[in-house]
């Protein structure tokens, strides 16, 4: 296994915190400059595969896509969350690409073509990355299996020798302890009455 694979395997054991990043509200500033966007994207991606968005739908989608991209000049912030100029420029670019009819996947691919897979906050499901996604589930299943086996074996081992039943007192709900004591006192009194030791009257 390569160093990269090991690194990914390690990462797989950690909670994928990045997934929990909420989508930030779309950037308010609309890009006025449309120069050369389509040209550059066409150079990388070919033609748009979606329909051009506009209005609130465009705002919302821009925020969604920006939340999936890593701001290259920040430490662990998405393009949606970062106030940096670089992130702002990227949001404008996302917006223009979506408006031009490029779909989410194309927009992501556009940024990936220049920044590499690093720019995606969610590692895409391909190659060694599968490990990242399935390892937590496998670890959970494995853990559950081991736990089930151990519990079953313990249960089996515990059943064999006739273990002395645990005293009730040890396991009683503390809320009920008062009632138990009263019952005990009553029973005790009855016993004493039965043996004719004392107590003439009751209640």
């Amino acid at each position, binding site marked *: 296994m390569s160093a990269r694979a090991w*690194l990914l395997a390690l990462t797989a054991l950690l909670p994928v915190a990045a997934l929990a990043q909420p989508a930030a509200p779309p950037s308010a500033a609309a890009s006025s400059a449309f*120069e050369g966007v389509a040209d*550059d994207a066409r150079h990388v991606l070919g033609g748009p595969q979606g329909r051009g968005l506009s209005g609130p739908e465009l705002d919302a989608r821009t925020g969604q896509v920006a939340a999936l991209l890593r701001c290259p000049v920040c430490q662990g912030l998405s393009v949606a969350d970062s106030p940096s100029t670089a992130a702002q420029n990227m949001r404008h670019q996302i917006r223009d690409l979506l408006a031009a009819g490029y779909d989410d996947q194309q927009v992501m691919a556009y940024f990936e073509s*220049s*920044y590499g897979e690093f720019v995606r906050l969610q590692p895409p499901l391909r190659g060694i990355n599968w490990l990242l996604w399935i390892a937590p589930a496998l670890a959970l299943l494995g853990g559950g299996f081991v736990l089930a086996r151990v519990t079953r074996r313990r249960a089996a081992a515990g059943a064999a020798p006739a273990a002395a039943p645990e005293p009730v007192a040890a396991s009683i709900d503390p809320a009920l302890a008062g009632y138990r004591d009263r019952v005990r006192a009553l029973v005790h009194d009855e016993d004493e009455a039965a043996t004719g030791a004392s107590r003439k009257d009751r209640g």
Partner: protein
Amino acid sequence: VNRKVLLIGLAVVLPLAGILAVNIKRDPNPSLQRSPLVGRKAPPFTLTPVGGGAAVSLEGLRGHPVVVNFWATWCVPCFQEHAVLLRGARAHGAQVQFLGVVYEDEEERVRSFLSEEGMAYPSLLDTSGRTAIAYGVFGVPETYFIDADGAIAYKHVGPLDDATLEENIGRIAPRAVTEAR
């Protein structure tokens, strides 16, 4: 107890220790990873130079090797490498086109910087930041060496020194370096 517990423990701990051992010296700085653009066609751009004048288009330079340097006046290493780039452009300007692309800076500051520090090639304004995005710029300075066919041969992150500049000009224009010697 038990061998089994020990084995399971080792099975968990050893791979983790292995990962640590292999990666402990790795620099997590993403800008130092190999750019996906290396070996591919350089993203086209058409930008206006600082101080006005006709827009410069990369496509228009096809057939010439090009050095594209992303920089800013607020960037200290850029200041340090400026002299290196001036020397390089003066030595190889006939064979290699040098271009500066201003990254997140104001034209006025750039203009006064260049008039003080000297200028041997055009610096272009990337006001929308789109060219920096297209080139996957993480920060400045970053320098792209583009061969005569328009493909990116090398990306250098951080300030250039004379030797590194010469070496990489050699990649895109082998003759330029031997002639200059």
